């Protein structure tokens, strides 16, 4: 199959690769970038586990081809905070027991990041609606809602 060159910055580092046009962004990130924090949880764009930021906006990396991200900048869970530190969302998920098995967590945190970007002071209903596209089977979402509320409050301070 023919390949095309793409150049994608992930967490500030540029990856120049030859890829098949059909290569999904999530596989570019995981297999070519070696960054496995971004998860694949379904094959129908339903679960949100693969959510990353593409030029600052949350997208599902399983529903985006790598070629569509050519020239763009991607932020994954690994790059959300400078090395050795945690983003307030990460801290709040930890403090509020917002995760159990952790598989949905990277996507959930990136989706929460998008929610706070567009609505910095969400109430619980806003948070529940903002995260309805991300599946979690462990927590029943309650502590995720707590965590996002807590992060919003701490960011506002």
């Amino acid at each position, binding site marked *: *199959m023919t390949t095309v060159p793409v150049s994608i910055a992930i967490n500030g580092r540029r990856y120049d690769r030859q890829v*098949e046009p*059909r*290569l999904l962004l999530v*596989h570019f990130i*995981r*297999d070519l970038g070696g*960054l*496995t*924090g*971004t*998860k*694949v*949880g*379904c*094959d*129908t764009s*339903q*679960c949100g*586990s693969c959510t990353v930021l593409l030029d600052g906006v949350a997208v599902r990396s399983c529903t985006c081809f790598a070629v569509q991200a050519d020239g763009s900048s991607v932020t*994954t*869970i*690994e790059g959300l905070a400078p090395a050795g530190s*945690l983003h307030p969302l*990460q801290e709040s*998920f*930890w*403090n509020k*027991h917002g*995760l*159990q*098995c*952790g*598989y*949905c*967590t*990277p996507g959930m*945190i990136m989706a929460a990041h998008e929610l706070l970007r567009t609505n910095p002071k969400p109430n*619980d*209903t806003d*948070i*529940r*609606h903002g*995260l*309805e*596209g*991300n*599946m*979690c*089977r*462990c*927590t*029943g*979402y*309650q*502590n*995720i*809602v707590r965590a996002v509320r807590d992060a919003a409050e701490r960011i506002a301070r």
Partner: protein
Amino acid sequence: MSSRIFGSGIRRREDPRLITGTATYTDDLSLPGMLYAAMLRSPHAHARITKIDVSAARSAPGIVAVYTGADVKDALKPVPCAWLLPNANLKIAPYPAMAIDTVRYVGDIVAVVVAETRYQAYDALDLVQVDYSPLPAVTNPVMASGSSAPQIHPDVPKNEAFHWTVGGGDVDAAFKNADVVVKETIVQQRLIPNAMEPRATLATWSAAPGELTVWNTTQNPHILRFLCSVVTGVPEDKLRVVAPEVGGGFGSKIAAYPADFLTVFCSMRLNKPVKWAETRSENYQATTHGRDHTQQVELAAKQDGTILGLRATIHAGMGAYLSTAAPGIPTILHGLMLSAVYNLPAVKEDVYGVYTNTTPVEAYRGAGRPEATFMLERMIDKLAVAVKMDPADVRFKNMIPRFENGHTVITGLTYDSGDYPAGLKKVLDHVNYADLRRQQADARKQGRHLGIGLASYVEICGLGPSQVAGAIGFQGGLWESAIVRVHPTGKVQVFIGASPHGQGEETTFAQLVASEIGVDVNDVKVVHGDTDVTPMGWGTYGSRTTAVGGAALVLAARKVRDKAKVVAAHLLEAAVEDMEYADGKFFVKGSPDRSKTIQDIALMANVAWNMPKGVEAGLEASMFYDPPNFAYPYGSHVAVVEVDAETGHVELKRYVALDDCGPQINPVIVEGQVHGGVVQGIGQALWEEAVYDSTGQLVTGSMLDYALPRADRLCDIEVISSVTPSPHHPLGLKGIGEAGTIASTAAIYSAVMDALSPFGVETMRMPFTPERVWNAINHR
């Protein structure tokens, strides 16, 4: 700090790696030269394979190998069933890792393709030519047991995998003497577990030493090693199974699966690392499902609400083959729990396990106990209507009174401890039940349909005494083991046989050790999930890890403490009897300044320059703990819903869970387990169902079609608790992993039916979709 670490809601140590994306799940692993496997699965529910042509696939780009059933059948023994239910005429049909001439469900594997990349492997699947001659299929367990149903396995007439019964008391007399008999046919619909991490296997065979390493998304690596050794012939000592980070299981990662063995087969044939990771659609087709009971139930009672007896016939769909633990789920874990929290004088249940042309069924969170709890709670609600009593009063009237050290029920089980009436009273007080009923009456006057639902449960967990395991046909033990090793600097490593996968035992087990030997909790590392490193254990399921593994760990830590005391006495030149211990310090009675810390002793025991006579060097202990009984957590839940009669939509208004799992190591983690468990049970009541059409196609084949609970459809869960220690656990601990799920389906069902009572709705099938509710209201 150490004395207060037990019971403290400290943050989980698992989380830093999980929130930064640095945790390693199976599909995150890569090895040099690794190849990718993809499984070709049958699109037919029941068919003969007339021809397979793999030549085009073999010559596709990047393809290393293509194997079919003919290649595999002599290399792999059939996939084992490990719960050989006695006295049930159990018929285990051969379960080949790959179909040879017949496929029996949509998802049965017919070929495996191995390629240099994942994309190449999936491309080549389309090039494998399989000719099928379709056969009639059957997916419903009641229909499958009929005489005209297609027979799925040659030696299993009427598709009857087993017929198991439980009985006690004079059930015929109970029904003869009854004032009231209530009846219902209950469908416990088929569910898809949906652990967020799909299943995956990475196998690497080293031919020279003849050693195999398997990384797998498993809840029980030691059982998988055992079964993998049986199936592949690789000796257990040369077979290492690793459960790396595992993203939830809920029962679906107990079984040993065909695809796991096929991945191993490919690695052994090719002498290369081979990875297989299922897609979500593949997970829906081929990773085990749960529930699938049709229950015909009748309850006999007196006019004053006293229960006299219960009679039931269950048809449990088992799927096309018997999965690892499947036969025990609708029988032992269901039928023996029919007394629930009540005095039940007589019971008779027939359980027919039935093969159907569907995905194999296994344990799914609660596994048998939700199906038992639901039956009793539903019949009690019907009884309350029939005898015109409040459903809470009927429950109180029949509940087993408080007991602290054993209560034997009609099915033969001896519950450990409980105070069921106090639990129900506490949750009713919490919600102000009388006031809730008044609010409901007021709402009805305004044309609003509030419903209040109750569910009380007791569950059997902490599986269990190994002698009992043997007696009920479980082909393994159910003990757990732990090693506590104190290093020279006083830092502790703990090795456990159990295999947590989201429940947080790396944290709670460190809390246990810290509280037993007085080290800082951050000085204890808990190691699990690698059969080359950890001692034998039977896995994490059935809410058993704290109840059994936790007991092993506590007793191992106490052995360490006892040895440390002997060393301390020697170093302080005192008699062992004169030594006392508190908070990590050993001191001579009456002179607290003559003391040694656990760290002092760790150093001295590890260098061993001056050990007491006859005492071995080192500070380490192991414990194999076989529990004398199961553990029986219990509770009562209250749900409040509002039904929109115009649309049939059910809105969750309030949910309160009272659970008693004994003393809590970490109440924040307990609360999290309850939240998640309750929501899974709500999912069954309101949204979830695996649907097959009449030809055996899985209609709910992806997350687009199978309705999982989402954040915006739920309300907050209020979690309260009581503490009734188990008399047989060293710390009185029970289990909490499944409790929420066991109660909540029944509580929501109860609430919705209560809301619909003005419409004369007597029964409804789950899940309560708006369409179903609207039809019920309008008697369509």
